[in-house]
């Protein structure tokens, strides 16, 4: 049994559907990539798994209900930043910006989506943890970083006082922060971007979680710092056997880090395969288009790029046909004749024309 099994996950904010039936699995100790461009639903997928979306009631239309405060526990700036940007809440939808989450996300056999908030709180941070893109807004600016690490240790491992501080220093040392004892007393603004990301990673791995979700962990960082962080993540995964769900837009990061890849477009997986297979034989035109859009260091200079035309705004609903059809160069009649299914087992794709194209 896979460690994490996501099945037909759907997330809607009022009239806007962010995730439209995403399924994938993460096996114990594996690194799985969730790739896509902004608005494809990759961040919302991760927030849904972590139970960090403001709750809405599944399957019910909301009308003139009094404005209700979201039931989810406060999760700080990261959530606020992530949700409304990627998913514009339609005017007539829920006023509180709540999400309707449907489907299944089984962690070790337990469906996280139906778990009581208190049980979820016990799991979150201990069994599964998350690293966000922007470390500055995910850390509390007025609390020393030492306290922010010991908080997790206290809550989940019952460590207190000196023991907790010592363990926090160990963790900082583990993620490669020099002079950890001194750093514990510092505030987030005193650290550089790379250091802050290391602190976030230290907090995330404090309880040796079995699954780590990293949402664009290196996007805000410089290339040399990105290399440091990727190396650190790789090292943690190798030595602790932690499974990693890596959410990114960077196919380069995927190529270097992931074992398996799921490519998302408009809220659905359009292609999934082991990493080497995907790069050797990209099948879905979107994956092909993404690879053709990246300027590469190993190819000839001034080799022309073959971009994907249009933008993600040119979209049709999945139930009417392939959402990528309006931007696809190989679009044909069957593409818009109905819902395309995900076919194939190891290397799966959602393209009805795949046979003809190949």
């Amino acid at each position, binding site marked *: 049994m896979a460690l994490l099994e996501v099945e037909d996950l759907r997330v809607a904010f009022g009239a806007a559907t962010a995730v439209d039936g995403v399924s994938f699995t993460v096996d114990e100790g594996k690194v799985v990539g969730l790739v896509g461009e902004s608005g494809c639903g990759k961040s919302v997928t991760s927030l849904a798994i972590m139970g960090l979306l403001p709750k809405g009631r599944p399957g019910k239309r909301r009308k003139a209900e009094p404005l209700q405060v979201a039931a989810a526990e406060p999760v700080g700036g990261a959530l606020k930043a992530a949700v409304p940007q990627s998913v514009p809440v339609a005017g007539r939808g829920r006023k509180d910006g709540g999400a309707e989450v449907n489907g299944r996300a089984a962690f070790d056999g337990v469906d996280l989506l139906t778990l009581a908030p208190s049980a979820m709180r016990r799991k979150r941070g201990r069994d599964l943890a998350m690293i966000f893109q922007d470390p500055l807004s995910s850390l509390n600016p007025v609390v020393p970083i030492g306290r922010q690490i010991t908080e997790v240790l206290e809550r989940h491992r019952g460590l207190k006082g000196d023991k907790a501080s010592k363990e926090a220093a160990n963790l900082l040392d583990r993620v490669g922060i020099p002079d950890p004892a001194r750093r514990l007393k510092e505030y987030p603004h005193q650290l550089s971007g790379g250091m802050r990301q290391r602190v976030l990673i230290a907090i995330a791995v404090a309880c040796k979680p079995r699954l780590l979700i990293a949402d664009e962990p290196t996007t805000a960082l410089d290339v040399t710092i990105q290399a*440091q962080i990727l190396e650190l993540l790789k090292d943690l995964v190798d030595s602790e056997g932690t499974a990693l769900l890596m959410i990114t837009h960077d196919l380069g990061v995927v190529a270097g880090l992931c074992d398996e890849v799921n490519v998302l477009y408009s809220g659905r997986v359009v292609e999934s395969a082991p990493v080497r297979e995907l790069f050797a034989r990209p099948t879905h035109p979107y994956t092909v288009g993404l690879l053709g859009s*990246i300027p590469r260091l190993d190819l000839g200079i001034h080799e022309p790029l073959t971009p994907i035309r249009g933008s*993600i705004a040119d979209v049709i609903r999945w139930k009417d046909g392939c959402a990528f059809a309006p931007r696809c160069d190989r679009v044909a009649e069957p593409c818009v004749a109905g819902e395309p299914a995900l076919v194939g087992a190891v290397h799966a794709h959602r393209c009805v024309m795949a046979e003809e194209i190949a």
Partner: protein
Amino acid sequence: MSTEPVENAAPHVPAQRTEEPDLSVQETDSPEGASAAPQERGAPLLEVEGLEVHFPIRRGIVVERTVGHVRAVDGVGLKVDAGGTYGLVGESGCGKTTFGRAVLRLEEPTAGRVRLGDEDVTALKGERLRRFRSKMQMVFQDPLGSLNPRHNVDMLLAEPLKVHGVGSKAERRKLAVETLDAVGLPKSVMERYPHEFSGGQRQRLGIARALMLRPDLIVCDEPVSALDVSIQAQVMNLLDELQGEFGLTYLVIAHDLAVVRHLSDRVGVMYLGKLVEEADSESIYEHPRHPYTKALLSAVPQPDPEIEANRERIILKGDLPSPANPPSGCRFRTRCPWAEDICAEVEPEWREAASGHKVACHFDL
């Protein structure tokens, strides 16, 4: 007439412009028109010598004292050929953006000289500088932040022309439509506002606005880094096309080595306010000579699992030192895997290691 302010000159020459509204606009109107016109490719259009931008660090509440300087740009010189593209790479805080702004006199240089065509940009003042700005434009990183949200496309594109007193309202509109067409946007967007566009379209608008005055030089500061991968490629291809169509010279500032390599003929690598290496884009990627360039190149994740599995990464230790107090000798020595004693004592000279390949390092790596 050539000495008159452009505002007055403009209304007298419309007949000519309606026939050939493209490049004639600048030449006929601007007193400096001829001086910085596109030259034969190969001759340098932009020459920068020893450019320095130091920002004072001030302390004190009532009486401010200057307690030091942030040496954002600390002696950078380069040449950009007319019709060519120079790519300036470096990580955040290396001074590349400040350099680009100082070239355009958006930041006042502390020392050094910038020459565009035959004009010494650093010596220009007041009205002459203001008018000369039509020759050099900028494309910014954040297309939403650099477009006034309360102006529609018509107003946004006409503004630079208004400021420089070019054409009548109808002519400005005509030029705007032509420029929109050149950047791949339909005429129908003229009444729309920035928030109605996607990121890629906004960047097209930003480029269109920079093109409105038909400049000679465009400084592109991270032109694609805010965009999605598939859109990045569209905008890069567009920049390529426009260069041929309008005879543009680009200074591209970016942190992404692959983007810079794709766009540029010549590449300069900046570290902590100084150039550490400069060469043709081919040789700098094939044979990087400076340890920093090597590390940068090895750090870029490649979209190919085979390459990723076999590559040797040079992982740099630590972070960028403070530009207010740069390390002695070679500035890179605190993070350099090959550093020796001499690196702390003597600043390496800017030398030509091979033909057209300059590097600031004591060693031949």
